[in-house]
Protein backbone atom coordinates (compact mmCIF):
# COMPACT_ATOMS: atom_id res chain seq x y z
CA UNK A 1 0.00 0.00 0.00
CA UNK A 2 1.55 3.35 -0.99
CA UNK A 3 2.66 5.62 1.84
CA UNK A 4 2.46 9.42 1.58
CA UNK A 5 4.49 11.27 4.22
CA UNK A 6 3.68 14.95 4.69
CA UNK A 7 6.22 16.67 6.92
CA UNK A 8 4.13 18.93 9.16
CA UNK A 9 6.93 21.37 9.89
CA UNK A 10 7.75 21.94 6.22
CA UNK A 11 4.15 22.42 5.06
CA UNK A 12 2.94 26.03 4.67
CA UNK A 13 -0.74 25.11 4.53
CA UNK A 14 -1.30 26.16 0.91
CA UNK A 15 -3.76 23.31 0.22
CA UNK A 16 -2.55 22.67 -3.33
CA UNK A 17 -2.12 19.00 -2.51
CA UNK A 18 -5.68 18.81 -1.24
CA UNK A 19 -6.85 20.12 -4.63
CA UNK A 20 -4.53 17.83 -6.56
CA UNK A 21 -5.36 14.49 -4.92
CA UNK A 22 -7.63 12.45 -7.23
CA UNK A 23 -8.64 10.26 -4.28
CA UNK A 24 -9.47 13.34 -2.17
CA UNK A 25 -7.84 11.78 0.89
CA UNK A 26 -5.84 14.85 2.01
CA UNK A 27 -7.21 17.45 4.35
CA UNK A 28 -5.84 20.22 6.56
CA UNK A 29 -5.04 19.32 10.14
CA UNK A 30 -6.91 21.13 12.91
CA UNK A 31 -3.67 21.91 14.70
CA UNK A 32 -0.93 24.29 13.54
CA UNK A 33 2.78 23.65 13.07
CA UNK A 34 5.49 25.77 14.71
CA UNK A 35 5.23 28.25 11.83
CA UNK A 36 1.55 28.68 12.59
CA UNK A 37 0.19 26.94 9.50
CA UNK A 38 -2.55 24.30 9.53
CA UNK A 39 -0.56 21.56 7.83
CA UNK A 40 -1.90 19.01 5.34
CA UNK A 41 -2.38 15.40 6.30
CA UNK A 42 -3.61 12.20 4.72
CA UNK A 43 -6.73 10.98 6.50
CA UNK A 44 -7.39 7.77 4.50
CA UNK A 45 -3.99 6.30 3.58
CA UNK A 46 -5.39 2.90 2.38
CA UNK A 47 -7.22 4.61 -0.52
CA UNK A 48 -3.93 6.15 -1.77
CA UNK A 49 -3.01 4.96 -5.27
CA UNK A 50 0.58 6.27 -5.18
CA UNK A 51 0.09 8.62 -8.14
CA UNK A 52 2.40 11.26 -6.58
CA UNK A 53 0.28 14.23 -7.78
CA UNK A 54 0.27 15.65 -4.25
CA UNK A 55 4.06 15.57 -4.06
CA UNK A 56 4.44 16.91 -7.60
CA UNK A 57 2.28 19.94 -6.89
CA UNK A 58 3.73 20.71 -3.45
CA UNK A 59 5.78 23.95 -3.66
CA UNK A 60 7.78 23.09 -0.56
CA UNK A 61 8.80 19.46 -1.21
CA UNK A 62 7.02 18.58 2.02
CA UNK A 63 5.67 15.27 0.67
CA UNK A 64 7.54 12.00 0.12
CA UNK A 65 5.86 9.00 -1.45
CA UNK A 66 6.80 5.34 -0.97
CA UNK A 67 5.35 2.16 -2.39
CA UNK A 68 6.06 -1.40 -1.31
CA UNK A 69 5.10 -3.45 -4.34
CA UNK A 70 5.84 -3.50 -8.03
CA UNK A 71 4.13 -0.32 -8.88
CA UNK A 72 2.55 0.56 -12.19
CA UNK A 73 3.65 4.14 -12.88
CA UNK A 74 0.86 6.13 -14.40
CA UNK A 75 3.34 8.52 -15.98
CA UNK A 76 7.08 9.15 -16.00
CA UNK A 77 8.16 11.99 -13.78
Amino acid at each position, binding site marked *: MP*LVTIKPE*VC*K*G*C*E*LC*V*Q*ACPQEIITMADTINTKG*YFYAKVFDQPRCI*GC*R*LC*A*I*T*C*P*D*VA*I*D*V*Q*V*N*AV*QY*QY*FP*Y
Partner: protein
Amino acid sequence: MAQHTIFCRPESMTDATTHYCPGCTHGIIHRMVAESLDELGLREKACGVAPVGCSVLAYNYFNCDFLEAAHGRAPAFAVGLKRVSPEMTVFTYQGDGDLASIGTNEILHAANRGEKITVIFVNNAIYGMTGGQMAPTTLPGQITTTSPTGRDVNTAGWPIRMRELLSTLRTPAYIARGSSHSPQWVIRTKQYIKKAFEYQEANRCFSLIEVLSTCPTNWGMTPTESTKWLADNMIPYYPLGELKTPDEDDALVGKMLG
Protein backbone atom coordinates in the same frame (compact mmCIF):
# COMPACT_ATOMS: atom_id res chain seq x y z
CA MET B 1 8.21 -5.51 2.40
CA ALA B 2 10.89 -3.05 1.27
CA GLN B 3 9.57 0.45 0.73
CA HIS B 4 10.60 2.02 -2.58
CA THR B 5 10.74 5.79 -2.55
CA ILE B 6 9.13 7.09 -5.71
CA PHE B 7 9.20 10.73 -4.78
CA CYS B 8 11.55 12.75 -2.58
CA ARG B 9 13.62 15.90 -2.42
CA PRO B 10 16.21 16.00 -5.25
CA GLU B 11 19.87 16.06 -4.24
CA SER B 12 20.37 19.33 -6.14
CA MET B 13 17.99 20.97 -3.71
CA THR B 14 19.02 21.92 -0.16
CA ASP B 15 16.89 21.17 2.90
CA ALA B 16 16.27 24.84 3.55
CA THR B 17 12.66 25.95 3.92
CA THR B 18 12.09 28.53 1.22
CA HIS B 19 11.10 32.09 2.00
CA TYR B 20 8.46 31.95 -0.72
CA CYS B 21 4.85 32.61 0.28
CA PRO B 22 2.56 29.62 0.92
CA GLY B 23 1.31 28.30 -2.42
CA CYS B 24 3.84 30.26 -4.49
CA THR B 25 4.84 27.91 -7.28
CA HIS B 26 8.45 29.13 -7.38
CA GLY B 27 9.12 26.16 -5.12
CA ILE B 28 7.81 23.70 -7.70
CA ILE B 29 9.88 25.27 -10.47
CA HIS B 30 13.01 25.16 -8.29
CA ARG B 31 12.34 21.47 -7.74
CA MET B 32 11.89 20.74 -11.44
CA VAL B 33 15.24 22.39 -12.21
CA ALA B 34 16.91 20.48 -9.37
CA GLU B 35 15.36 17.19 -10.53
CA SER B 36 16.62 17.84 -14.07
CA LEU B 37 20.14 18.50 -12.76
CA ASP B 38 19.99 15.27 -10.74
CA GLU B 39 18.62 13.12 -13.54
CA LEU B 40 21.17 14.41 -16.06
CA GLY B 41 24.02 14.23 -13.55
CA LEU B 42 24.85 17.92 -13.87
CA ARG B 43 24.84 19.13 -10.25
CA GLU B 44 28.61 19.06 -9.83
CA LYS B 45 29.31 21.11 -12.93
CA ALA B 46 26.33 23.44 -12.77
CA CYS B 47 26.18 27.12 -11.92
CA GLY B 48 22.91 28.99 -11.58
CA VAL B 49 22.42 32.72 -11.91
CA ALA B 50 19.55 34.33 -9.97
CA PRO B 51 18.98 38.05 -10.34
CA VAL B 52 16.90 40.45 -8.29
CA GLY B 53 13.33 39.26 -7.68
CA CYS B 54 11.63 36.86 -5.27
CA SER B 55 14.07 34.21 -6.44
CA VAL B 56 17.20 36.26 -5.75
CA LEU B 57 17.75 33.96 -2.78
CA ALA B 58 17.58 30.86 -4.96
CA TYR B 59 21.17 30.06 -4.04
CA ASN B 60 19.94 29.08 -0.59
CA TYR B 61 17.80 26.33 -2.15
CA PHE B 62 20.15 24.81 -4.73
CA ASN B 63 23.08 22.48 -4.08
CA CYS B 64 25.28 23.87 -6.85
CA ASP B 65 27.44 26.94 -7.46
CA PHE B 66 25.45 30.15 -7.88
CA LEU B 67 25.87 33.76 -8.91
CA GLU B 68 23.52 36.45 -7.68
CA ALA B 69 23.02 38.93 -10.46
CA ALA B 70 21.97 42.54 -10.79
CA HIS B 71 18.39 43.11 -11.92
CA GLY B 72 18.00 42.01 -15.54
CA ARG B 73 21.67 41.11 -16.06
CA ALA B 74 21.53 37.37 -15.38
CA PRO B 75 21.87 36.38 -19.05
CA ALA B 76 25.05 38.47 -19.34
CA PHE B 77 26.44 36.89 -16.15
CA ALA B 78 25.62 33.47 -17.53
CA VAL B 79 27.14 34.24 -20.92
CA GLY B 80 30.34 35.48 -19.31
CA LEU B 81 30.72 32.32 -17.26
CA LYS B 82 29.65 29.92 -20.03
CA ARG B 83 32.03 31.48 -22.56
CA VAL B 84 35.07 31.05 -20.28
CA SER B 85 33.93 27.72 -18.82
CA PRO B 86 32.04 26.02 -21.68
CA GLU B 87 32.25 22.64 -19.95
CA MET B 88 29.94 23.91 -17.18
CA THR B 89 26.15 23.78 -17.19
CA VAL B 90 25.03 27.37 -16.80
CA PHE B 91 21.42 28.39 -16.24
CA THR B 92 19.58 31.51 -15.17
CA TYR B 93 16.41 31.64 -13.07
CA GLN B 94 14.62 34.90 -13.70
CA GLY B 95 11.25 36.53 -13.01
CA ASP B 96 9.13 38.43 -15.51
CA GLY B 97 9.95 41.88 -14.11
CA ASP B 98 13.63 40.95 -14.46
CA LEU B 99 13.69 39.29 -17.86
CA ALA B 100 10.84 41.04 -19.72
CA SER B 101 11.47 44.56 -18.44
CA ILE B 102 14.92 45.74 -17.36
CA GLY B 103 16.62 42.64 -18.80
CA THR B 104 15.03 42.55 -22.24
CA ASN B 105 18.13 43.67 -24.09
CA GLU B 106 20.31 41.06 -22.38
CA ILE B 107 17.95 38.13 -22.99
CA LEU B 108 17.27 39.17 -26.59
CA HIS B 109 20.96 39.22 -27.50
CA ALA B 110 21.87 36.12 -25.53
CA ALA B 111 19.16 34.31 -27.51
CA ASN B 112 20.19 35.87 -30.78
CA ARG B 113 23.83 34.94 -30.33
CA GLY B 114 22.66 31.41 -29.62
CA GLU B 115 24.44 31.31 -26.24
CA LYS B 116 24.50 27.72 -24.99
CA ILE B 117 22.80 28.55 -21.70
CA THR B 118 19.42 27.52 -20.25
CA VAL B 119 17.02 30.22 -19.07
CA ILE B 120 14.19 29.45 -16.65
CA PHE B 121 11.77 32.36 -16.99
CA VAL B 122 9.07 32.53 -14.31
CA ASN B 123 6.05 34.54 -15.46
CA ASN B 124 3.59 35.43 -12.69
CA ALA B 125 2.30 38.61 -14.33
CA ILE B 126 3.48 40.83 -11.47
CA TYR B 127 6.52 42.11 -9.53
CA GLY B 128 6.50 39.88 -6.46
CA MET B 129 9.53 40.89 -4.38
CA THR B 130 8.72 44.59 -4.33
CA GLY B 131 5.12 43.99 -3.38
CA GLY B 132 2.89 43.62 -6.42
CA GLN B 133 3.57 46.21 -9.08
CA MET B 134 2.56 45.97 -12.75
CA ALA B 135 5.00 43.98 -14.86
CA PRO B 136 5.37 43.82 -18.64
CA THR B 137 3.43 40.56 -18.38
CA THR B 138 0.56 41.97 -16.26
CA LEU B 139 -2.71 41.20 -18.04
CA PRO B 140 -5.04 43.89 -19.44
CA GLY B 141 -7.30 45.14 -16.68
CA GLN B 142 -5.28 43.36 -14.00
CA ILE B 143 -5.11 45.45 -10.83
CA THR B 144 -1.68 45.92 -9.24
CA THR B 145 -0.20 48.54 -6.91
CA THR B 146 0.97 50.52 -9.95
CA SER B 147 -2.09 49.86 -12.09
CA PRO B 148 -4.67 50.52 -9.37
CA THR B 149 -7.53 50.81 -11.87
CA GLY B 150 -6.32 47.84 -13.88
CA ARG B 151 -3.70 47.74 -16.63
CA ASP B 152 -4.75 50.22 -19.34
CA VAL B 153 -3.41 48.93 -22.63
CA ASN B 154 -3.66 52.42 -24.11
CA THR B 155 -1.01 53.74 -21.77
CA ALA B 156 0.83 50.61 -20.63
CA GLY B 157 0.53 48.58 -23.79
CA TRP B 158 -0.32 44.90 -24.00
CA PRO B 159 1.50 42.23 -22.02
CA ILE B 160 4.69 40.92 -23.68
CA ARG B 161 4.76 37.28 -24.79
CA MET B 162 8.47 36.51 -24.42
CA ARG B 163 8.18 32.97 -25.82
CA GLU B 164 6.73 34.36 -29.05
CA LEU B 165 9.01 37.40 -29.14
CA LEU B 166 12.19 35.36 -28.88
CA SER B 167 10.95 32.68 -31.24
CA THR B 168 11.00 35.14 -34.15
CA LEU B 169 14.80 35.20 -33.94
CA ARG B 170 16.39 33.24 -36.73
CA THR B 171 19.15 31.75 -34.53
CA PRO B 172 18.23 28.17 -33.57
CA ALA B 173 16.88 27.81 -30.03
CA TYR B 174 14.57 25.68 -27.90
CA ILE B 175 11.83 27.93 -26.53
CA ALA B 176 8.71 26.64 -24.79
CA ARG B 177 6.12 27.82 -22.30
CA GLY B 178 4.89 25.58 -19.52
CA SER B 179 3.00 26.18 -16.30
CA SER B 180 3.20 25.23 -12.63
CA HIS B 181 -0.46 25.71 -11.73
CA SER B 182 -1.51 22.04 -11.99
CA PRO B 183 0.24 18.68 -11.49
CA GLN B 184 -0.46 17.76 -15.11
CA TRP B 185 1.30 20.87 -16.38
CA VAL B 186 4.11 20.49 -13.86
CA ILE B 187 4.77 17.05 -15.34
CA ARG B 188 4.85 18.44 -18.89
CA THR B 189 6.92 21.51 -17.92
CA LYS B 190 9.46 19.26 -16.23
CA GLN B 191 9.99 17.55 -19.59
CA TYR B 192 10.55 20.92 -21.27
CA ILE B 193 13.09 21.95 -18.59
CA LYS B 194 14.93 18.65 -18.80
CA LYS B 195 15.03 18.86 -22.61
CA ALA B 196 16.43 22.40 -22.36
CA PHE B 197 19.32 21.14 -20.22
CA GLU B 198 19.85 18.28 -22.67
CA TYR B 199 20.18 20.77 -25.54
CA GLN B 200 22.78 22.66 -23.48
CA GLU B 201 24.64 19.45 -22.71
CA ALA B 202 24.73 18.67 -26.42
CA ASN B 203 26.05 22.21 -27.01
CA ARG B 204 23.19 22.45 -29.47
CA CYS B 205 21.41 25.76 -28.88
CA PHE B 206 20.09 28.46 -26.57
CA SER B 207 17.10 27.32 -24.49
CA LEU B 208 14.44 29.26 -22.61
CA ILE B 209 11.51 27.77 -20.72
CA GLU B 210 8.83 30.29 -19.74
CA VAL B 211 6.84 28.91 -16.81
CA LEU B 212 3.54 30.49 -15.79
CA SER B 213 3.46 30.78 -12.04
CA THR B 214 1.11 31.99 -9.31
CA CYS B 215 1.57 34.88 -6.85
CA PRO B 216 -1.19 34.37 -4.27
CA THR B 217 0.01 37.17 -2.00
CA ASN B 218 0.14 39.91 -4.60
CA TRP B 219 -2.80 38.63 -6.62
CA GLY B 220 -4.79 38.79 -3.39
CA MET B 221 -6.11 35.22 -3.63
CA THR B 222 -5.66 31.88 -1.91
CA PRO B 223 -3.17 29.49 -3.50
CA THR B 224 -5.93 27.26 -4.91
CA GLU B 225 -7.89 30.24 -6.26
CA SER B 226 -4.64 31.45 -7.84
CA THR B 227 -4.25 28.23 -9.83
CA LYS B 228 -7.77 28.69 -11.21
CA TRP B 229 -7.16 32.37 -11.99
CA LEU B 230 -3.99 31.41 -13.84
CA ALA B 231 -5.82 28.77 -15.87
CA ASP B 232 -8.79 31.02 -16.68
CA ASN B 233 -6.87 34.26 -17.38
CA MET B 234 -3.20 33.68 -18.12
CA ILE B 235 -3.30 30.59 -20.29
CA PRO B 236 -5.68 32.08 -22.90
CA TYR B 237 -3.22 34.99 -23.33
CA TYR B 238 -0.07 32.91 -22.87
CA PRO B 239 -0.74 29.65 -24.77
CA LEU B 240 1.35 26.75 -23.52
CA GLY B 241 3.66 24.43 -25.46
CA GLU B 242 6.90 24.27 -27.40
CA LEU B 243 7.12 27.01 -30.02
CA LYS B 244 10.68 26.83 -31.32
CA THR B 245 13.02 23.87 -31.58
CA PRO B 246 16.47 23.82 -33.18
CA ASP B 247 15.64 20.95 -35.55
CA GLU B 248 12.79 22.91 -37.10
CA ASP B 249 15.13 25.84 -37.65
CA ASP B 250 17.56 23.70 -39.61
CA ALA B 251 14.67 22.59 -41.83
CA LEU B 252 13.62 26.20 -42.14
CA VAL B 253 17.13 27.09 -43.30
CA GLY B 254 16.86 24.45 -45.98
CA LYS B 255 13.59 25.92 -47.16
CA MET B 256 14.84 29.49 -47.08
CA LEU B 257 18.15 28.88 -48.73
CA GLY B 258 16.70 26.31 -51.06
